[in-house]
């Protein structure tokens, strides 16, 4: 399982990378960041880029910054960065809960948040986070900068609005308000495997009632998204097992589940139901 031949480029700056993409993107050029997904698909020769543009040497892409209530995650930030207390507040707490579910330790050392977002596997945890928190993907090309909301960016299974000459330079997440409770649950055959379904929930308590609800489902449909019917079932209610069960049921009913040889739509629905309930029960 050796990759097909390619020409290798290692730009030292974003400008250089963008210029390379302008030239080679339309000629089967791909960006190499963590490589934990891309190199595997290249080993199977399912992906056969003629040009690889390795952005790992671009220092300016390796940062997490917070400005004006927005968390900006550079394209080279590794999954492992979120295992530590690198992000404060409820957003950081949520990211720490999520990252534990991503693959395994050596994968998290190399794989990147933005790479996962650009790859848009339905089972990607970060895609679920982007959808759930209304994240923004920042794209650069020789034609300029585009900022796309998650729901515009994700277009289906492994499909995004990324143009062939564009580079994801950052993903942005609006910081959750202090006091926001967050929960995340996923289910896979073995821990670290691709999730069959996952649920991400957030809410704040005001006078004992849940407000600003977010319920996002990933792994179960072609792309991760917020489920308005589920959020509606949460809004203005007091937390409790009955309410959580209703929210779970609403989410399960609202999704259009993926089916594969091992997982029926019915199974994904029942998983979503259970995972939403548990995410809510565990939210803190």
């Amino acid at each position, binding site marked *: *399982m*050796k*990759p*097909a*031949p*390619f*020409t*290798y480029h*290692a730009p030292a700056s974003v400008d250089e990378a963008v210029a390379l993409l302008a030239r080679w993107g339309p000629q089967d050029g791909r960006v*190499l960041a963590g*490589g*934990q997904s891309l*190199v*595997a698909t*290249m*080993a*199977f020769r399912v992906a056969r880029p003629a040009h*690889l543009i*390795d952005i*790992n040497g671009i220092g300016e892409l390796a940062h997490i910054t917070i400005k004006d209530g927005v968390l900006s995650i550079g394209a080279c930030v590794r999954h492992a960065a979120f295992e530590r207390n690198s992000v404060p507040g409820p957003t950081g707490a949520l990211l720490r809960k999520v990252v534990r579910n991503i693959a*395994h*330790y*050596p*994968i998290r*050392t*190399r794989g990147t948040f933005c790479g996962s977002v650009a790859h848009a596997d339905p089972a990607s945890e970060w895609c679920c986070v982007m959808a759930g928190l209304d994240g923004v993907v920042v794209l650069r090309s020789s034609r300029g900068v585009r900022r796309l909301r998650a729901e515009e960016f994700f277009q289906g299974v492994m499909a995004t609005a990324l143009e062939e000459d564009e580079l994801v330079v950052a993903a942005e997440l609006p910081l959750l308000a202090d006091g926001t409770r967050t929960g995340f649950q996923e289910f896979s055959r*073995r*821990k*670290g495997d691709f999730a069959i379904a996952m649920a991400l929930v957030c809410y704040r308590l005001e006078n004992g009632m849940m407000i600003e609800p977010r319920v996002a489902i990933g792994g179960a449909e072609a792309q991760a998204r917020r489920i308005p019917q589920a959020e509606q079932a949460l809004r203005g209610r007091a937390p409790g097992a009955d309410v959580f069960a209703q929210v779970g049921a609403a989410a399960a009913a609202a999704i259009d589940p993926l089916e594969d040889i091992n997982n029926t739509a019915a199974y994904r629905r029942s998983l979503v139901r259970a995972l939403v309930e548990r995410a809510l029960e565990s939210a803190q």
Partner: protein
Amino acid sequence: MTERRAITLSVNGKDYPVAVEPRRTLVDVIRDDCGLTGTHIGCEHGVCGSCTVLLDDEPVRACLMFAVQAEGRRIRTVEGLQQGDELHPLQQAFMRHHALQCGFCTPGFLMLAVGALEKRPDLDDEELVEMLSANLCRCTGYENIVKAVRAAATEMKARA
């Protein structure tokens, strides 16, 4: 066939100048060009962990990187674990606790454990199993690997 690049890999503190196509994976170059065959290939798609090496002290899957990406980085493989004739505590523990049978997954587990324990010597039992679940073994059923790593962790802390 694309043009070969002349790069120098630093493995276990020694420089290896090689000329490789960009598509050659790090594990293939370590094995075939540097002649260090202790790092093994079990799947070539990043699942089994047999190819685990340390890159700047972090465990990575050498089958998911290209050799050209590793220039200027410090690579450590199983061949570099012992100090002269003295085996690393993990190597000794693996032998003492029968943590290997066919030995194919062993270098990958050793490097994974070295990387993890050097950074976090105080992993508790659950974290230890979690960490070790990153790699596959088909012979031992894992129990002795967990025991060996736990014993070595204690030893490594004592020596530190």
